[in-house]
């Protein structure tokens, strides 16, 4: 779904108010999911602390030695133990939600909000787009709304680029306005006449009706914001940036998505991005790994490592882009907190996971470490990330505290 845009002019002052420092760049949150784990022997450094040698899969990050940390010994168990849809659940459906999907009979099987949407709850209204979400396609979304329903990803980086930087044609804008106008009057009228209905129904019997009306009010509010955005010109394209080409190999598409992400962050059109670069059946014939990644995870550690390392080269490319964008005396990488990883290890297990935490979170993160968190929940790492962007959540899924970095 195209996220409803919000007027920058309308909100920052009001929302950020006195606490915001006008000279300080905002912190951006990026969640990169690789899916189906990685070969841990080649991903985890042997030594802990600051002086670890880069393992082979992480070698492409040599130029960013002081910009990331390896967090190992993490545990994503609530999402695994009794999930309803098998071992892959903790890695896809539950990677960003940590929900206990309850394969247990009688317990409703329902996902919960994903961590990126928690960030959107707090940061979404400050930018033109609350959230960007990419995947090369063909895989299930890992992003879940406040009510635990999946939000599909954008699969076309070119379309995303156009949405970010191109103004709509006058005809399209007029059609959109007509549609919004009818929606708006329908909303007003339904809300008005719902009072009659509410009178007819006893208080004790209108639980879901109230929820419906509350949501209608929220939609109405958003419709007003959307309407105002329709007349706002899109920001100009940063010098040197070109729209990505359509199609290409999987690697090219992933890099295109990363490039568009960097542009969106650079122009502060969103502060929360989710990138699903994996996919169980995804193949990389361009690097001589023609079979599905999932197959490798079951029988072929060698090819698994080949793909793992290849993906880290994409990551290095993305980090390079962020580092080249200067802002507020620092760079975009400094002002970002980036998660890179998966909810599985080498063999589909959910214990002793390793994820990367990258960027300096606007100066809140101390990097360059390899730490064993000895069974702390992966969700604690999520809390840490949220905090770097000023989102103070006390709990998330099975985590009640942040990782001490």
């Amino acid at each position: 779904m195209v996220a409803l845009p919000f007027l920058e002019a309308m909100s920052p002052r009001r929302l950020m108010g006195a606490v915001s420092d006008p000279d300080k760049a905002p912190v951006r949150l990026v969640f990169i999911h690789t899916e189906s784990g990685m070969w841990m022997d080649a991903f985890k450094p042997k030594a802990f602390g600051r002086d670890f040698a880069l393992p082979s899969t992480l070698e492409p990050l040599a130029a960013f030695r002081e910009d990331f940390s390896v967090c190992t010994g993490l545990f994503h168990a609530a999402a695994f133990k009794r999930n309803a849809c098998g071992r892959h659940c903790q890695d896809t459906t539950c990677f960003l939600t940590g929900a206990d999907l309850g394969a247990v009979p009688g317990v409703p099987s329902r996902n919960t909000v994903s961590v990126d949407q928690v960030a959107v709850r707090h940061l979404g209204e400050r930018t033109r787009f609350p959230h960007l979400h990419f995947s090369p396609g063909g895989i299930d979304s890992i992003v879940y709304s406040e009510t635990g329903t999946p939000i599909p990803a954008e699969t076309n980086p070119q379309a995303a680029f156009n949405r970010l930087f191109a103004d709509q044609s006058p005809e399209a804008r007029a059609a959109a306005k007509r549609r919004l106008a009818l929606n708006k009057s329908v909303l007003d009228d339904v809300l008005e006449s719902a009072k009659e209905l509410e009178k007819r129904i006893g208080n004790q019997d209108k639980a879901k009706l109230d929820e419906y009306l509350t949501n209608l009010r929220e939609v109405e509010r958003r419709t007003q914001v959307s309407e105002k955005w329709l007349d706002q010109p899109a920001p100009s394209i940063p010098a040197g940036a070109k729209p990505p080409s359509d199609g290409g190999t999987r690697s090219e598409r992933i890099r295109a998505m990363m490039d568009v992400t960097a542009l969106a962050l650079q122009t502060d059109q969103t502060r929360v991005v989710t990138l699903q670069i994996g996919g169980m059946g995804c193949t990389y014939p361009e690097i001589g790994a023609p079979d599905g990644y999932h197959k490798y995870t079951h029988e072929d550690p060698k090819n698994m490592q080949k793909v793992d390392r290849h993906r880290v080269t994409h990551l290095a490319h993305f980090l390079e882009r962020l580092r080249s964008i200067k802002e507020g005396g620092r760079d975009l990488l400094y002002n970002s907190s980036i998660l890179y990883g998966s909810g599985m290890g080498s063999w589909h297990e959910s214990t002793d996971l390793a994820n990367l935490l990258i960027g300096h979170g606007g100066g809140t993160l101390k990097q360059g470490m390899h730490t064993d968190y000895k069974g702390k929940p992966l969700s604690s790492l999520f809390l840490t990330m949220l905090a770097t962007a000023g989102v103070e959540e006390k709990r998330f899924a099975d985590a009640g505290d942040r990782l001490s970095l």
Partner: protein
Amino acid sequence: MKFSFRIFVWLSVPAVSGLAAEPAPTLDPVSKAGAFYSEQCVRCHKEGKAKGGFRMDELLAKPTIEGLDDPWKNVLDKLTSREMPPDDEEGRPTDEDYEKQIGWLRGELEKSEQLTATARPRAQRRLNRAEYNRTVSDLFGVPMRPADGFPPDDTLHGFDTVAEGLNTSVVLLDRYLDAAQLVAERVLKEYPDKPPEASTFRTGANKVNGEEVPGFKLFDPNSFLQFGGSDGVWERRHWVGHAWGADYHAKEAGRYKVTVRGRPRHFAPNERAIVRVEVGERVHGIFDSPPADRGGDLLIETNVWIAQHNTTVPFVFTFVNGNPFGGAVDETVDYYPSCWQRHHDAKGKHFPDQMGKSGDAWMPKEPDGLDIRWIEGVRLEISGPHYDAWPPVGFQREFAAELKAKDLGAVIRGILPVAFRRPVSEAEVANIVEFAESSTGAEAKFEDKLKAALTRMLVAPEFLFLVEAVPAGTPRGGYRLTNWELASRVSYFLTGTMPDAELRAAAARGELSDAKKLDDHVGRLLRDSRCVSAMTEGFLNSWLHLDRLAGVMPEPKLFPHFGDDLKRSMAEEPKAFFAALLRENGRITDLLDADYTWANERLAMHYGLNREAIRGSGLRRVELPNRQRGGLLGMAGLLTLTSEATRTSPVKRGIFVLENIFNRPPPPPPPNAGELIPGTASAKSIREHLALHRENTACAGCHSRIDPWGLALENFDAVGAWRTEESAWVDPSRPQQREEGGQTPKFAINASFELPKMSGAARSAAGFDAVRAELLHRREDFARGFTEKMMIYALGRGLVISDYQRIEDASDALRREDYRLHALIRAIVQSPAFQTR
């Protein structure tokens, strides 16, 4: 024994109280129960000796049961099933004692429910996605599926008809608004006076790859063999297993007739070509040709509804008759090179210069001795649009006069009561008309006003929700549904859509208050094919979690023949079985044990039945030659659903029996429950792993009642095929382990089991046949569990203690009529639980 069974799916659903308006009840002091509990329970369930982690002394120390509903409900269940105190205890209570305690406790729990219920509002139920699609289609008389783009509905208590679980979200409301406008545009599209001429597109027999006719673009992936035909033209030949198709450009929405012709080669005489048809990325259906020896070249003919004007729709066809050599498809084999190998061997030479790019293979003439199965002379024909009525939208025919007169008020007066499923006041009509006028402006066209009005109507809570307007202050259960509300309940229960014209007429006449007349309508709807499809898709799918089959992924190395056609056939078997019960008013005990099942050719292969007799993809009733199948627990789909990717899971299968057959699910495992870890040092069978797990007393309580049901099914492997031996469980997807473990020992299957008592003595037996005898022995427990499941589905809420009598009544009616399914459905509709709120 762990003290942990639940009666229903309890959870926090507010209660329905007795029918009469009563003052708030007062709870009895626990001491009123007398010495029963301290004499019978405390010995084993007290401080320092809390068997099963349960302490009776704590419950007795409280003044009343307030706030302790859940543990007391467990107590009630143990008493009802006579499970506690255990058999071997001295001085067990007499039946009279039991009944007395059960009566008191149930009364207390009902009071407690009433006390807590008033604090929580009860939900009005909104339409779920399937209901929304059917309802707008029926309302306007044109097939539409706008809800396919809505976020998926949540299930609660196992069903997506439960009001409490049907949440709304901002995303959903956005989609409602968009869908309403799109539906209104669809419905109001202007049609010329006469239907457009149907046109026909045909592919020729003498065209090669890449053929393009206007409006029609074929795509031939690597599946083609092109042979020079006898008359020197190229012929299109497909071998089985590969997809081909066409992009068809439809100028008009409407019904299109799709015909596929061709001649199967090297098929057995009575074998049928099986064609899967996908339209616009949805599976439209799987169709069987007439038997191959029946002559003629017509393979299949089907009708497809194209909903959009001026759209390009991809049609994809696949011949899914197993592999090219006649057996089941092995997912780990690429048949293309092996077909070629075989062909080259047969001919003894290659034709390298006539081979195109990978996959295109052109032969000068059909080689002799090539026994690969293919379809030759494949032709596709699409013709349309065909219309059964004109204009194609029922709404436009029904309101022809009002639309012609541009009388907005008359149209709304006609459609609004149907949409809201109740009579509407003139003021409500006027409000909508006024809305349409004011929101579009004075100069707006009639069509724009009508669009605004219909959009407004489709977003109204009265349309989206099955509103049951209980006046304020009515006690729970004290409200009798109006005829209109009852019509909706019946209609959505049985057909998953709005009440049809006859039901509406009966409601208008107030006839549904008459039990006999209501029952006549139920009888009428039960004969309606809409009922079979809606209840199979709505009730059965959720009851057995059949949707989850789509996501299972058995390890291909171990189960190479597990492919899409098998998976689909597996999912169809219980549906076809249940649909037949529903059509023919069969016995639900057939679900426990039967000497027949519903199968197609693919399942017949999987089950080792004679496939010659069951050619094709269509499922039909098959008499079983032996006792290896029959009943739900012998169905491969359910056995696969309850397995891991690499092995069976007696635990999952046991839970399935407790949850789905008896509706007595075990509680969730404690947070520290271990996992079964495949050992490498000493190879063990699953049975031995589980036995170890049960040695842990924390686990034994639940697992001693879960595991036996699953262990009895060990003759079925992880994809439900019959087996007599198993390999030691060394996860084959972990090569490391395999190297360490070396050879994996095999064990003969031991399917013996020892059941704890439910309402009888413990029994030991072995194997699938014995377990079905056990199920039949407990058929009354099943009837009750099944009744509860169907009541949750029908009432749209979780069950509570005060439903107890209604459940008993309905399952009694079922038992009295020899467990015939219609008896239960009729009894549920007649139940006060169904007719009140």
